[in-house]
């Protein structure tokens, strides 16, 4: 089997539990992401999603295990891995435009100032920020606009891997919807690999090629990898009409509501904890029934 573009191999994270022992967040977690893939990770709080994100970003070190990208081991933060943080992390003393050029200047130090600015404006326009708005400071922008700037900053750097840490968590539902579609539009034009944490099932189905499901911690693991068998381009209003939508959604709800608890707390022994691939496709009918262990529990029609 060829190595995927990004592979996480036997990653373990333990913290001291404050009583002299250790608390294992996850153990021997292994999974991979292909180039150009959009992968979302879903799981309850405390299962270590953010820890995985920080390790991928290079902001934290796992207790053991390796992360390989393009065949090379990841250590420390790098411009090859862009991050969009939940709280936007814009520098408040810089305008929206300067926040984006800040990133581009770091990425392409030998570009001329004009080229940097044109590139920044280009990406700001892609997320719908044009005109005088780009000269505003983050404090003068709404939450949705701030996250747009943050997304523009990350995409403008064209990193090999883009990490999104619950980017829409702090936004209201309506704003979230429009920015999700903008994110899709920006992403569609690229072969950008994206790894995103979210709490929102619908958001994950809309955006992802594949959803990784995590069991509850401690000893959390990536239990399933659910393929989203809904063709692109997707829009929020159209995907709900697709026959696979509710089948996938119900599977996810079942997992998060019930099986994430049932599967929790199992120590791995020494096994690789690779996720099981789940493929739910009601349009393909019988010809290739996936090896998904759970039968579909709820069906829309």
């Amino acid at each position, binding site marked *: 089997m060829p190595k995927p573009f990004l592979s996480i191999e036997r990653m373990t994270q333990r913290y001291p539990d404050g009583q002299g022992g250790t608390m294992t967040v996850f153990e021997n977690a292994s999974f991979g992401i292909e180039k150009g893939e959009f992968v979302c990770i879903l799981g309850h709080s405390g299962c270590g999603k953010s820890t995985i994100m920080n390790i991928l*970003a*290079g902001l934290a070190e796992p207790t053991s295990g390796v992360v390989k990208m393009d065949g090379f081991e990841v250590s420390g*933060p*790098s411009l090859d891995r862009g*991050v969009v943080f939940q709280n936007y992390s814009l*520098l*408040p*003393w810089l305008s929206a435009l300067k926040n984006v050029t800040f990133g581009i200047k770091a990425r392409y130090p030998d570009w001329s100032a004009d080229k940097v600015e044109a590139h920044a404006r280009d990406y700001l326009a892609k997320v719908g920020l044009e005109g005088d708005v780009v000269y505003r400071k983050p404090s003068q922008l709404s939450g949705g606009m701030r996250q747009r700037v943050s997304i523009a900053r990350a995409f403008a750097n064209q990193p090999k891997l883009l990490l999104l840490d619950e980017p829409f968590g702090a936004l209201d539902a309506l704003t979230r919807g429009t920015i999700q579609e903008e994110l899709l539009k920006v992403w569609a034009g690229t072969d950008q690999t994206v790894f995103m944490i979210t709490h929102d099932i619908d958001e994950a189905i809309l955006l992802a090629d594949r959803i990784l499901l995590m069991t509850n911690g401690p000893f959390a693991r990536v239990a399933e990898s659910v393929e989203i068998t809904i063709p692109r381009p997707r829009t929020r209003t159209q995907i709900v009409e697709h026959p696979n939508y509710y089948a996938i959604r119900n599977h996810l709800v079942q997992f998060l509501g019930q099986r994430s608890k049932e599967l929790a707390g199992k120590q791995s022994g020494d096994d690789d904890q690779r996720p099981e691939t789940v493929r739910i496709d009601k349009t393909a009918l019988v010809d290739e029934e996936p090896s998904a262990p759970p039968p579909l529990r709820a069906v829309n029609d």
Partner: protein
Amino acid sequence: MLDNLSINKRAAILSIVMLVVGLLIWEAAIPAQKAVGELTEYERLTGGGAQKAGVPPPSQVIAKAWEELSNPFYDAGPNDKGIGIQIGYSIYRVLTGYFLAALVAIPLGFLIGMSQIAYKAFNPFIQVLRPISPLAWMPLALFIIQDSEASAIFVIFVCSIWPMLLNTAFGVAGVRKDWVNVARTHELGPLKTAFTVILPAAAPTIVTGMRISIGIAWLVIVAAEMLVGGTGIGYYVWNEWNNLDLTSVIFSILMIGVVGMLLDSAFGVLQRAVAYAE
């Protein structure tokens, strides 16, 4: 009629009223010297006709101010220099000591703010040295430096270093982790991170420390110059006290206030320039 004016205008009118009333009370509170002809024989015999030293009325102070300010830079020997020259000397000493202090305090504050170990290692010294009145250093400074001018500058250095040092350390230590992470994920080196992320993030706190320091330095310079003598506004106050020229004393007190206010508002402008809203 007053209701139509803005709050600022109404406040200004109130200020002027307070000033005028205050000056009138002051003027009226000074007992007038009786003319020689009105004195009784007893009063004349006991020296009642001689000029008495007293607190001068505001009219005299204003006249003195006009006289001094219309020719602020004359120099007629060591004990007779214009107010502008005296203030100039004081400002020169304050700024020299102050900027030397900034050169030490801001980099050191950065170090202390960035590193837990440096903070813990420096903290005991800071805690002991900080409460020492800067003037207490004066004898030691005079002995070691052997130069009164440099000693005065040293005293300013010592008094203005602490607020800048502590505020810089506090500001740097308080920079949001997210912003540092932004720098890290953009692979900025330590120097670049310091200048493009930490410095602007901590600037409002640092400038607040600088503003406190310049205020303290201006308070201390008057006392320092009273001790070292020679030139400066502090020396001028003391010299006029020795001359029993209370009009000049009051005038110079007012000038100290005005210059202090100008220094402070300069840093107020700087503070607004580096401020940001989150």
